[in-house]
C-alpha cells in the first residue's frame, strides 16, 4: 500500500482566498487539520540516510525503535517511503501497517498480511493458497519495476509476534528461490525491545539475522534549529491548495500579517521559549531526553495559526509570545493519555 496523500484542495476557489470568512469556512478541510502533510525534519533525514546506507546496499533488516509515542514515527514512514520512491524509481517500495490480531496460523497470516498490504482478499474460496498469492504480490512488484529486490516498510512492527516473523521468513526464502529478494525496514515502538529479547532468548537466529540486523533509535525534536526548519516550511513550501504556491500555510491562516512581513520563522525565539517552558526544560533539551514529541509540537503550531485566523489580528510581538505559550500549552496538554504513558529515557 501507499501512504495517504493529503487532499490537494483542487476544489478551493483561489479567487476567494483573500476573503477571511471563506478561509474560515475551509479551515477544517485544510491540510493542517487533515494532518496528512509531511514535514522535512532532521530525524527523517537521518532515517533516510541510514536506510540507504544499510538496506539498499543489500544488508537489510533495519529496525527503528521509538522509545516514546507520538514522536512522529508514522509520518516518518510516510516521508521515508516518498523519499525512497522518488530517489529510486526503479526499486519497488511498499508500506504495511501491522496490527494486532493478525492470525497466527501461517496461511491465514499471509491472508491478513496481504489485506494489510492492500491486496485483494475478497472473492476467494477458503482453500486458496494465500502464500502463493502473497509471493506473487511481491514478485509482480519486482517484475513491474524490472528489479530483483523489493523493500517493505513495516510500521507498528511491535504488533507482530516472533512466530509471524517466522512466517515472513519463509516468504523471504521462497522469493529468494525464485530469484527475488525482499528486504524489510521496521518501525516500532519501545515494546519491540521485548520481542528482541525473546528472539535472543529463544534462539530465533534466522529471524534476527533477517529482520533485526541493525537497530536505530527514533527520537523527537531536540534543537531550536529543527523547529526553525519546520516553521520555515510552514512559511514557504507547505501550501494549500497544493498548487497555489502563493498560499503557504502561514499566509492562509494570517494573510494580512503575512503580507505585512510576518513569518513564523521570525518568531522562532518566542516559539522555542514557549516549548521549553511547557516541557519544563531550561535552555535546551537534555541529551538524555528523547526529544519533543512531534505530534504535540505540530499540534501547538496548528493552534497558533488557527488562533491567528480566528482573531484576524496581526501578530504583534508581545501578543505573539502569549499566543505561542498558550498554543503550546494546549498542544501539549490535549494529550492526557499520551502524557501519562510517556517516559523519558534517562
Amino acid at each position: 500500500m501507499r501512504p495517504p496523500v493529503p487532499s490537494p484542495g483542487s476544489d478551493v476557489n483561489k479567487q476567494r482566498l483573500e476573503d477571511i470568512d471563506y478561509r474560515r469556512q475551509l479551515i477544517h478541510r485544510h491540510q493542517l487539520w487533515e494532518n496528512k502533510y509531511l514535514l522535512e525534519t532532521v530525524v527523517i533525514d537521518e532515517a533516510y540516510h541510514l536506510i540507504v546506507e544499510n538496506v539498499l546496499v543489500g544488508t537489510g533488516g533495519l529496525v527503528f525503535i521509538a522509545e516514546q509515542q507520538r514522536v512522529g514515527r508514522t509520518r516518518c514512514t510516510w516521508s521515508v517511503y516518498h523519499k525512497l520512491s522518488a530517489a529510486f524509481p526503479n526499486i519497488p517500495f511498499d508500506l504495511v501497517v501491522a496490527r494486532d490480531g493478525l492470525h497466527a496460523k501461517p496461511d491465514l497470516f499471509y491472508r491478513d498480511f496481504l489485506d494489510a498490504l492492500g491486496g485483494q482478499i475478497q472473492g476467494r474460496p477458503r482453500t486458496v493458497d494465500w502464500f502463493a498469492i502473497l509471493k506473487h504480490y511481491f514478485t509482480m512488484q519486482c517484475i513491474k519495476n524490472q528489479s530483483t529486490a523489493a523493500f517493505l516498510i513495516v510500521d507498528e512492527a511491535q504488533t507482530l509476534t516472533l512466530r509471524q516473523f517466522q512466517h515472513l521468513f519463509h516468504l523471504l526464502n521462497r522469493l529468494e528461490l525464485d530469484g527475488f529478494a525482499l528486504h524489510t525496514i521496521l518501525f516500532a515502538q519501545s515494546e519491540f525491545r521485548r520481542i528482541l529479547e525473546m528472539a535472543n532468548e529463544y534462539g530465533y537466529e534466522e529471524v534476527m539475522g533477517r529482520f533485526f540486523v541493525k537497530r536505530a533509535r527514533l527520537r523527537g525534536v531536540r534543537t531550536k534549529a529543527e523547529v526553525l526548519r519546520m516553521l520555515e516550511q510552514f512559511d514557504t513550501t507547505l501550501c494549500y491548495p497544493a498548487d497555489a504556491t502563493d498560499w503557504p500555510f502561514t499566509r492562509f491562516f494570517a494573510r494580512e500579517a503575512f503580507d505585512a512581513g510576518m513569518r513564523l520563522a521570525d518568531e522562532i525565539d518566542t516559539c522555542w521559549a514557549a516549548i521549553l517552558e511547557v516541557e519544563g526544560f531550561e535552555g535546551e533539551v537534555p541529551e538524555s531526553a528523547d526529544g519533543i514529541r512531534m505530534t504535540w509540537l505540530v499540534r501547538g503550531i496548528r493552534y497558533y495559526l488557527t488562533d491567528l485566523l480566528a482573531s484576524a489580528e496581526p501578530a504583534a510581538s508581545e501578543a505573539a509570545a502569549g499566543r505561542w505559550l498558550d498554543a503550546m500549552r494546549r498542544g501539549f496538554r490535549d494529550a492526557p493519555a499520551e502524557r501519562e504513558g510517556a517516559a523519558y529515557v534517562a
Partner: protein
Amino acid sequence: MSLDTYSQQGWLTAPAKRRRHESAWLSLQKFAFVNVLTGRQISDLLKAEVDTEGGQRETVAAAIGAEVDWLRANKVRQIGPSKAAEDFLGGQSPFVVEDKCVKYCPACLQHWFHSTVHQVAAVVACPHHGVPLRSDCPNCGEPMPEFGFRTNDLREPLRCAHCMQPFHQDASLRALFAVSEELKAILATFASLEQSIRSCFATRRLTLGMQFPSRYSNEVDLRQSYFVSLWVLEYGTAIPRFLADVPAYCWGPMVKKDGDEAMRRIGSSSMDERKDAMQMLRVAGQQVRSVDRLLRRRVRSICGHESLPRMSFGYVYWFREKRFFLHVRPSDCACCMTLVHWRASYGGLMDMIQRLNRIGRSITESAVASILGFDRNFSSIATYAATQFERSVVSVATQLQTAPTTTKHFIGYQLARPEELSAELDRLWVDAFADTLDPRVVDMHCGTSLCRIQPDVIDQLLRDLAGATKERPRDGAGAGWHEPRSLWFCEIGSEMFRRRLNGWYVGAPRMPVDAEGIHFDAQ
C-alpha cells in the same frame, strides 16, 4: 479504468506495456494464474454486485481487456461465432476473429505473448516472425482451447486442458510478465500494426467501393488477399506500405493462387481448388459482415435506431425475363438508409454467397465460377438462390409489393452508369459539397464500374431525393411512387446489362413504356 485504479483495488495485474497488446484470452489466463483464481471464481466475481468502491466486475474486465457486459453475459457459456469474439475484445476489433480455437505463433508463445492479430481469420503466419501459426497444443497435439472465456478452460490457467502441461515450459511469473528486449521488438511490431489498422478503420470518412478485376485483365493480382480487398473496400486506396512489407502469405490462402490461369481452373473439376474458392468466399463473407457490424455500430451511434430495414430478394419482369432486385423496407432515417445502401451494394451479395454454401455443391460451384468470373452477374446469383428459396424470397417480395401500407410504397432507382451518376450528383450538390474532399470518385477499371460515394454524400442524396420527389407527379404504369421517405434500392448485373437498359436513373425512375408486369405497388 486505469491500471492504477484496479491495481489499487488489490488485484495483481500485468505491466501496462505488455497487457496493452496481448489478446484478451491470454490476459485472462494470466490474470487467473497470478491471482490464483479459477474460472469459477472469476465467474463469481463477475456475478458479484458492484459496490460503490469495489467494482469487481469492472476491475476484472479492465484487467483482462474485455467489456463487462459481455463478460457478464458469457461468463459460463461457450462463445459463439465471431460476433461474440469481437465483443469479447471490447467491440473495437475491426477484424473477423476466429474463436473456435486459439491460433498462436510458437515463437511468440515462448515469450508468453499472443495477440488478437493472430486470431484474425486471414492471418496464417505471424506478422513478426513469419512462422506459420499453430492451433494445437505444443505438447500433446490436441486442439488449443477456444478463444474466449470458458470456466472449464480456466481450471488450470496457462495449461492445456488435455495434457495439463503449460503451453510453454517456463511458466514462471518472470517469463509471463517480464518484458525482455526480444519481446519489446515483438510488441513494437504488433503495436505499430494495430495502431495503423485501427486508425484507418476508425476514420469517419469511409470510402466504400467494390473492385473486382475482370477475367480478361492481365493486371489481375490474385496475390491480393482478402485483407487487401477489404482495405480497398474501406478506403479505395492501395494497401499502405507498412502492410505491404508484411509477408503476403500472412494474410490468407488466396495469395497462393496466381494469375488468370488459376481463375480459369476454379470452374474445373479440381476439388481442392473449389474448396479453396469456397473458403475464400467464406472468409470474404465474414469480413464483409465484420465491416457491416462496424458500420452498423457507427450508424446506430448516430441515430440510435436498433432495427434496420430488412432486405430480401424480389424480382420484376423486365422484357419478359426476371430481373432480381433487393427489396428494402423503407425507413425515414437517412442514417439507417445509408447503411442499407451499403448492404445493398455489397452485403446482400455476400450474404447470398454464404447461403449458397448450404445449397449444394453443383449450384455452389456454378455460382462460385460465375462470381470468380467476375461478371458481377447479380441476377444470375439471385436466380440460383431463387431456385432454392423462391418461395420464401418471392413471397416476401410479393408481400411487400401487394400489401403495402403508406410506409411501404417504393420508389425504385438503381446505380446508373458512373458518369451518369456523377452528373446527377453534380446537378444536386455542386455548391453544398464544393469543399468536400473528393466527394465521389468514379473509376472505370477493366470494364468494371467502380463508383465510390462517401456516406455523407449518400445521406444527403437520400434526403434530397426524398424532398425532391415530393413534388414529382406519379408516372409510369405500375410505377410505385413513394411517400417522401420511402426508398428502395436495387442493383442490376454488370455493365453489359446496364447498357441494355434505358433504365432508371437516380432521382427519377423513368419506366420504359413497354415494360410489362412490373410488380410494384401501384398505389
